[in-house]
């Protein structure tokens, strides 16, 4: 199954991510309305739509090209904090990916993408950000691969971990991003970036299904 992680797979991931973001656009914006500025769904929808356009206009010829192009587009077109963060994630993931991509290589590259987000945002798990979904996903992925799981299984475990991580942000108090200005009042709401991260990792599993 290791031939699965080719250019087409990553193109499919981006298409599925764009679709799920479009579908959950209003929910994401609603989460952001509670503790932010009510634009996260719109931001990501615009960003992933532009990713789709860029990937059509300049067809990439390698997984790295898909991811770096997607990341660059997100940085340039999202407009909110999630743009540079997701952009750095995909760019770093793309740059770290060995050719040909193996499940273990992907897990390592994914972890390195998450690290780029942590570095840029100076955020750690527990700060009620996208990291709270991405970091558990990275760990689940690594562990699954180490246990010999195939991509499909590994991505499913990552998706579940991301989803749980996103829900686990509800009782947290935000320490980074706009929501951190709310202090105590950020408690009781799911972080929009963690929610979108769960969707993006879920579409990774979907792309492998």
């Amino acid at each position: 199954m290791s031939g699965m992680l080719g250019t087409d797979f990553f193109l499919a991931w981006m298409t599925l991510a764009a679709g799920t973001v479009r579908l959950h656009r209003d929910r994401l914006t609603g989460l952001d309305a509670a503790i932010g500025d009510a634009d996260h769904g719109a931001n990501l929808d615009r960003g992933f739509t532009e990713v789709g356009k860029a990937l059509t206009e300049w067809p990439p010829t390698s997984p790295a090209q898909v991811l770096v192009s997607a990341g660059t587009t997100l940085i340039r077109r999202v407009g909110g904090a999630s743009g540079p963060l997701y952009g750095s994630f995909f760019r770093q993931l793309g740059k770290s990916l060995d050719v040909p991509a193996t499940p273990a290589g992907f897990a390592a590259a994914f972890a390195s993408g998450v690290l780029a987000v942590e570095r840029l945002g100076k955020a750690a798990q527990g700060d009620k950000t996208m990291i709270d979904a991405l970091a558990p996903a990275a760990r689940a992925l690594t562990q699954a691969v180490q246990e010999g799981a195939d991509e499909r299984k590994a991505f499913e475990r990552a998706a579940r971990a991301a989803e749980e991580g996103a829900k686990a942000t509800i009782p947290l108090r935000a320490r980074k991003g706009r929501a951190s200005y709310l202090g105590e009042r950020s408690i009781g709401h799911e972080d929009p970036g963690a929610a979108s991260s769960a969707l993006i990792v879920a579409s990774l599993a979907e792309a492998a299904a």
Partner: protein
Amino acid sequence: MVGLVLVSHSAGLAAAAVELTRGIAGRETPVAAAGGDDDGGLGVSMDRIEAAVREVDQGDGVLLIPDLGSAVLTARLMEQPGRVVLADVPFVEGAIAAAVAAGGGAALAGVLSAAEEARTYRKL
């Protein structure tokens, strides 16, 4: 001279801060605004930041002064060690202090530390 780019979510805030900064530091100091998203709405645009950096770059380095959130994150992605540097300083006060230092011929490190001093400067 060191150039300054004021990066904000809000095109109006960046433009007004540039105006005020020029009023205090003088018109010669290269200061440009990078505010709003690509369509001029609330948000941050890398294209606008890049254009502003080009506008103020005289070869002596450029200081990026963001207001908050995505302006900070986007500006961080544009850092080029020793050439394009980010300042974590109060937006208006830091910009004024930086512009005065730049206008006085300070080098990039000096302009950055002038901006950082604005943190402790008392208004009263």
